[in-house]
């Protein structure tokens, strides 16, 4: 339940930005006491899933950068962020899995069994 977080956001939060998944990022409105830093948090769009946070916002959330990294500064070699797909139909399936034909490469301990015909 995020009722508490929503209340805190209404009471103290200052909207900072929004990412491509619709997650909204907040920080404390007031300047903190000396020796402390402004708290930063996220309100997820839909399911609470930490891997949905793209790297530019991840850096800001963890105080690696003072300001969120601007998305339009993206370099051509940067890949699109991909949240964890485990449990979904798009989850990764290794090539030896039954769902992908069940044929895997030879591995340690594979042996050839004798059959009467051979």
């Amino acid at each position, binding site marked *: 339940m995020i009722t508490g977080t929503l209340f805190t956001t209404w009471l103290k939060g200052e909207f900072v930005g929004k990412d491509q998944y619709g997650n909204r990022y907040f920080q404390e409105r007031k300047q903190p006491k000396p020796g402390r830093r402004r708290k930063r948090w996220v309100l997820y769009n839909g399911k609470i899933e930490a891997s949905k946070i793209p790297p530019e916002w991840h850096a800001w959330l963890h105080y690696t950068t003072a300001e969120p990294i601007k998305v339009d500064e993206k370099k051509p070699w940067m890949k699109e962020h991909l949240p964890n797909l485990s449990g979904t139909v798009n989850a990764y399936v290794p090539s030896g899995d039954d769902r992908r034909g069940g044929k895997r490469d030879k591995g*340690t301990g594979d*042996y*050839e069994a*004798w059959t*009467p015909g*051979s």
Partner: protein
Amino acid sequence: MPKLTIDGIEVEVEPGTTILQAAEQVGVEIPRFCYHERLSIAGNCRMCLVEVQPGPPKPAASCAMPVADGMTVKTNSPMAMKARKGVMEFLLINHPLDCPICDQGGECDLQDQAMAYGADTSRYAEAKRAVKDKYLGPLVATQMTRCIHCTRCIRFAQEVAGVPELGATGRGEHMEVTNYVEKALHSELSGNVVDLCPVGALTNKPYAFNARPWELKKTESVDVFDAVGSNIRVDSRGPQVMRVLPRVNDDVNEEWISDKTRQAVDGLLRQRLDRPYVRKDGKLKPATWKEAFEAIAAKLNGLSGDKIAAIAGDLADVESMAALKDLMTGLGSTSIDCRQDGMKVDPAVRASYLFNSTVAGIEEADALLIVGANPRWEAAVMNARIRKRYLMGGLKIGLIGQNVDLTYKVDHLGTGPATLQELVDGKHSFAEVLKGAKRPMIIVGTGALMRDDGFQVLGAARKLADAVGAVTEDWNGFNVLHTAAGRVGGLDVGFVPGEGGRDTHAIVEGAAKGDIEVVWLHHADEIAGERLGKAFVIYQGHHGDRGAHRADVILPGAAYTEKNATWVNTEGRVQRGRLAVFPPGEAREDWTIIRALSEVLGKTLPYNTLAQLRDRMTAANGVFGRIDEIVPAEWATFGDDTPLSADAKAFALPIENFYMTDSISRASLIMAECTDVYINGNDEKKTGTDD
């Protein structure tokens, strides 16, 4: 005895000891590359430099300098450290920095010692030298650019293996270790150069790029490919045996193993029996253990004991033979035999089938007679021991049988039993050599004992041993050289025909005639299936070899790396093999199969654990309680005293192909390649345009 001080520790050592050996005695380790305790001293790597006083003001090579009274040795003084750092820098000048792709990585002497004596950066900016790789056969891969010219491999080939095929050409920077011609190294011990090589110049070819040493589980075990019982370390990763290395045991194999021991393990992954089979309508069909046991029970139900027989093969362990013997006794059968080649020895007299002088005892012998054996193939590591004794000097060796190259000089006395009879009668000049010797040795091979006149040969050898004084209080010079790892264990546990029982020959004959209805082949693969007539054959083993093809029921057992088992080597040394990986699929440890079947047959064996079974073995024969010990056997009269006939045919050798002697090595692809290279003589390097 000279007294000297090493790093402040005073020590008194034998004269003639080198500084490095003396340091080892007080626990000070001096780094080295070329020095090896079982090879001659070369003194060419210069890594073992130490400061010696009194003496010239320069470091001395400790491996080659004998100790002198009043010497003061400093192994870690600034002078020694500076000298070693200099040596290391020179060694690394021409050594490639390819540790990440080198198979020696993680177990490399140069890598380890560079951590202690290497500089952090190189001052060398010039081009490194490159050396063409040499061809040493299918077992040894070479990367000669990595060679640091320690010459260990050259000395091993020359001294231990007895094949002077390796050498060095050129000098200084142009020195190359080479075998001069592009031909395989003609030795059964060639794999040992891989262990000796302190760098990655010589590596294990079949194991290349398969694993790193730190990934491997090390299990100390015993070899079963010959009857020497070499001590081995089985390196496995998960469910696969990756490689086999020797373990040091000065009484058995020193630190060598044969190529078959080392490389045949890839056979453990092929042709495996991983589930029970039962023959239905003339065809073998996969079955469950329950179905297999029920098929056996149905056949044995009401069958009298004299129609049942069991033959144990060369790879059978003692535990399973003990259990099978108890089961056969329960079924009322005494027709059991562990000698599938029909070898004639006297099971009642332990001395008649042991290598009584012991392997280490070879070094004390001063005359040796080999009868009908080729130790180079039947016990390659033991042959290296005979050669070691030969190189010490003063050993006269006579050979009766086929005149084979044993890597040392022998007097070929004759080919058949007639010569042996002449020796017994004292008519041959070599009899005087044996008589004159203090510790004469007579080695009788399986080839001489598996003949029809085997008992006469045994008796003749025993008479000769008595006549030349080979058996005294502290020396027994009568030796039988076995070829099968399970043989002595089987004889010790009493897996031999009991009262009214048949031996192997009679079992096969009986099966062909129909007198024997059930034959249990326990790891026995050397019995031709068609000779067993219409008998119901139960095969227990781990490979689909000759035995499995003829079987009516197949019980999948475990290979030697897959069970905790006891083996007895040819000298009667009881040794334990340990489980390194689990048997594949449905296969089980062998004694448990027999124990489970006994319950189905209603003859439940009185043991549930391995410990209980071993207690039972020890109760039956005390030697099984004395692990890794030699229990001297009582000397008695055995064999047939009838003189050997003068026109008996010559002794044949039991092994036709060293590289394929059992079901595991026959399934091995590497052994097949070795057969092609060494036996069929295709020992020249393939050029790429061949075939």
